[in-house]
């Protein structure tokens, strides 16, 4: 399994505050990776920096062998990376369906619209209403759904289960499993430990803007005590 995403010694800044202090991380093709860490350690920042949303950055980001540091933001998606932000980013001036079809399809292999509606019946029912009129959870579904259409190779998810009803969390778990089975590479940040442990192949533990540990799911039981101490899970 070759590395699809390779991050080395990545630094990032918000204005003058230095938030990432040399992140090293590898995501193999077809792997599902979960980043764990307490609030504020820089998980979201890591994802946003990889995406190219945060431009004050230094280090190395390679995606499919390509140097991403010089790629403008609007070309990142075309390289094959899809992003679901923490704050969901549903557009108020668009209907649900317009929201759903907004991101351009960048490659074949995306999920067709019908399949998406099967997966999230709420969206079908409310598809003509204004995007932000959806409930918090429905918005989360929409945010996920619209990326699934585009056929990206790497899916970056920032806390995808936040604010979702347990049934939906389970359903999203199933969806991610399905995507995994199709060979999708997934990088996610997740506070819901139980959910994360169910789908991840490998974990990174983050502290103070650095990755401090990296272990496969098999080692999870052995690590529980440390994790418990760090994360309170």
């Amino acid at each position: 399994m070759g590395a699809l995403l390779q991050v080395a010694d990545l630094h990032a800044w918000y204005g003058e505050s230095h938030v990432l202090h040399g992140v090293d991380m590898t995501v193999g093709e077809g792997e599902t990776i979960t980043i764990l860490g307490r609030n504020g350690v820089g998980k979201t920042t890591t994802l946003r920096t990889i995406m190219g949303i945060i431009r004050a950055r230094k280090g190395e980001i390679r995606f499919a062998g390509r140097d991403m540091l010089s790629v403008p933001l609007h070309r990142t998606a075309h390289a094959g990376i899809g992003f679901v932000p923490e704050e969901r980013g549903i557009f108020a001036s668009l209907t649900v369906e317009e929201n759903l079809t907004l991101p351009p399809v960048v490659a074949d292999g995306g999920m067709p619209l019908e399949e998406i509606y099967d997966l999230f019946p709420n969206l079908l029912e409310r598809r003509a209403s204004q995007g932000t009129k959806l409930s918090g959870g429905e918005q989360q579904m929409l945010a996920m759904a619209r990326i699934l259409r585009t056929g990206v190779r790497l899916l970056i998810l920032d806390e995808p289960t936040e604010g979702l009803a347990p049934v939906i969390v389970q359903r999203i778990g199933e969806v991610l499993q399905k995507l995994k089975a199709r060979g999708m590479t997934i990088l996610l940040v997740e506070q819901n430990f139980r959910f994360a442990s169910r789908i991840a192949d490998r974990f990174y533990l983050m502290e103070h803007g650095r990755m401090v540990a990296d272990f496969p799911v098999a080692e999870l039981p052995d690590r529980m005590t440390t994790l418990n101490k760090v994360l309170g899970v």
Partner: protein
Amino acid sequence: MTTIFGIPLAAFLGQLLIGLINGSFYAMLSLGLAVIFGLLRVINFAHGAQYMLGAFVALLLLQYLGVDYWLALAIAPLVVGLFGALVERTMLSRLYDLDPLYGLLFTFGLALTIEGTFRYLYGAAGQPYSVPPALSGGTNLGFMFLPNYRGWVVAVSLVTCLGTWLLIEKTKLGAYLRAATENTVLVQAFGINVPLLLTLTYGFGAALAAFAGVLAAPIYQVSPLMGTNLIIVVFAVVVVGGMGSILGAIVTGYMLGIAEGLTKVFYPEASNIVIFVIMAIVLLLRPAGLFGKDA
């Protein structure tokens, strides 16, 4: 003879029609303003100046190159649109991350600069621009003498407004634009070249203003000040319609044109505040404007 409120029906119809003609300009200008605001969150204070530029470019084209009205109708918006795009790309685009007020202030400065420059170069007095021969003369409608040119203005503005509305509300491009308004970064992260879109939008808005300017040139004096006072009225139109609502801007433009026209008959002294009065009433009853969605 039938009368309405003591006014002969014929005269009343005449005034109604004239209101509609003025409404055409309000509609076109507020439409451009609404497009720019709706998509860039910039109150384009320079809209009046761009309208004036349109008229001036047409005039200069005629004076120096002998380009006639019809060609000017195409060239002037293009020139002004390019100018707008240039301004957006080099300057305005740096302000998007900031409080929208800075956009307003910037375009205010831009308006002053443009108007000041033209005043410096061409003086404040108006300069003449003739009605194109094909549209000169008028038609007797029975209740009034309608200059052909004015009829043309109404028709063209209706088509322009409708076309723009369709473009923005019903096409994919429009959806990109609307989304980009709200969250530029995210739309870019989806793989859309938002900066380019925004440049085009501002250019388009400016071109729309210039187009209205060329249409206005044969009716009003071409003068560096022609946009200055108009723009404030158009602001009021946009507030009444509901900021950012494209349809609202269009419909309100025509409506207020008519309201103003009728005031000129019944109580002429109030005709330039009637729009502001309507604005105040609308704000009391529907703060979001007639067509606005609540912010």
